[in-house]
């Protein structure tokens, strides 16, 4: 009798797990099919506003700095990057995590990343293996560590994220998505645990 009960117990557990798995599969699809379009639009607008504000600040910081298109001097390139970085850091001295990636924006990005992965799971997961978290510490308004390699942004993810002005790029480190100013190599903002 006990044996019978335990068997039916197992069966019930199995059924419950199956139901949960099916629900889980449904959840995976939800970001694509059951999206709240207004919510997405609001988050996107909020994100674009944050990016525009940063671009304005960046432009002010480099106002009297000549743009270098091509120079034979490595020193001139390094000097420009460092000077610009110092000015941006000063102008953003109160910047903090979440200024651009607000909770609403982060949730939108999470949905977009999920949708991208559904599009090419194997390719993206393979590419993300290289994004394993290292010793690098990511802090807003601080330089992105140059001692290690950058992780190639999987194109499938990139094509699902909002486009950025040329001076900014997304980076992935571990599970975090980083917004980086490539001209002065500063972390503009970071949103944690967006990448599975």
């Amino acid at each position, binding site marked *: 009798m006990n044996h019978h009960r335990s068997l039916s117990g197992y069966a019930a557990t199995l059924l419950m797990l199956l139901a949960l798995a099916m629900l889980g599969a449904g959840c995976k699809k939800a970001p694509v099919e059951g999206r709240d379009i207004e919510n997405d639009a609001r988050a996107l607008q909020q994100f674009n506003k944050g990016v525009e504000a940063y671009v304005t600040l960046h432009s002010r910081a480099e106002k009297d700095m000549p743009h270098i298109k091509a120079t034979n001097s490595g020193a001139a390139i390094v000097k420009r990057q460092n000077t610009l970085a110092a000015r941006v850091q000063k102008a953003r001295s109160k910047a903090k995590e979440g200024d651009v990636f607000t909770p609403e924006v982060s949730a939108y990005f999470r949905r977009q990343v999920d949708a991208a992965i559904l599009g*090419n799971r194997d390719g993206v997961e393979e590419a993300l293996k290289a994004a394993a978290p290292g010793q690098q510490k990511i802090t807003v308004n601080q330089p992105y560590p140059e001692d290690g390699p950058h992780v190639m942004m999987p194109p499938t993810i990139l094509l699902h994220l909002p486009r950025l002005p040329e001076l900014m790029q997304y980076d992935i480190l571990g599970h975090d998505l980083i917004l980086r100013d490539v001209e002065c190599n500063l972390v503009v903002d970071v949103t944690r645990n967006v990448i599975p």
Partner: protein
Amino acid sequence: MRRPIFTAILLGAGMALAAALFVICPAAAGIEAQAVRPNGGPQATTLPLKPNSVRFAVIGDSGTGSPVQYELGQEMQKVHQTSDFGFVIMLGDNLYGGHSAGDFESKFERPYKPLLDEGVQFYATLGNHDNANETSYARFNMNGKRYYTFTRGNVEFFVLDSNYMNGPQLEWLRDELQKSTTEWKIAYFHHPIYSGGKRHGADTDLRAVLEPLFKKYKVNVVLSGHDHVYERIVPQSNIVYFVLGNSGQLRSGGLEKEAEEAAGFDTDRCFMVMEVAGSELYFQTISRTGTIVDSGVVKHQSEAAGGAGAPAEPAVKAANNNHQGVTSPKQPQQ
């Protein structure tokens, strides 16, 4: 009377030599002939060196600043004296580690000083160890751009930034390929979309967005770095792929023997010399010690097809060493 006999002897000797160099193997798709030679190839550059051809060298993952990078630079200078290649294409990771002013000197200017002094131009792409501001470094000829094209003779080069293959870059690439009228189209970027490298291997997500464009617009040759080995891939959808990521770095034994591999070398640093002469592209892969570890000729797809309407599979006639590559006298590790 003596002249015909002499000519016949000469012809016979030539054919015997050709047979020795090119051992016909069961053909993989697109490969006319493949040879396996004993270790140690010829030391001198033997490209056809035809007048008005487009000649260039290739380096990848070079910018370590280590003594072996300098040694490879010296070997390139030697080859330049005989082959007179006009420019060098760089497959990324041009400067490893820091990016101070001194790094530009020790990892690029000094190792290639003899070539720079002789007016050889370098055309770089960005690798995952590069700083985006390298695009402003005039000696890399990027003119402030992450991706660009340039044309030499009948060849157009499409230089891409595979670190960040976003929508605008893909749209730009499609437009540039669409309007390109050159006979040869060569694309190069850092991350390989075909590779037998154990460390990284092929990036299939990148392949998913690039390969359809390469196929549609008939790109002939694609070169990448990132895996610190040399590899020539069996033509994929009519396109010949090379991986060259050991011009400074080296992952000794870093090649996985795969069906897609036509030739590989993973025991020392190397660079390539290429010559495009009409509808043929000659290539030689040369090690730090001056040994030719792989060589051959790629026939342009239209030529290999034997006329309109026929399948346009590129013919690659090659003479190469085995998968492990030749054993060099010195094997410095890094």
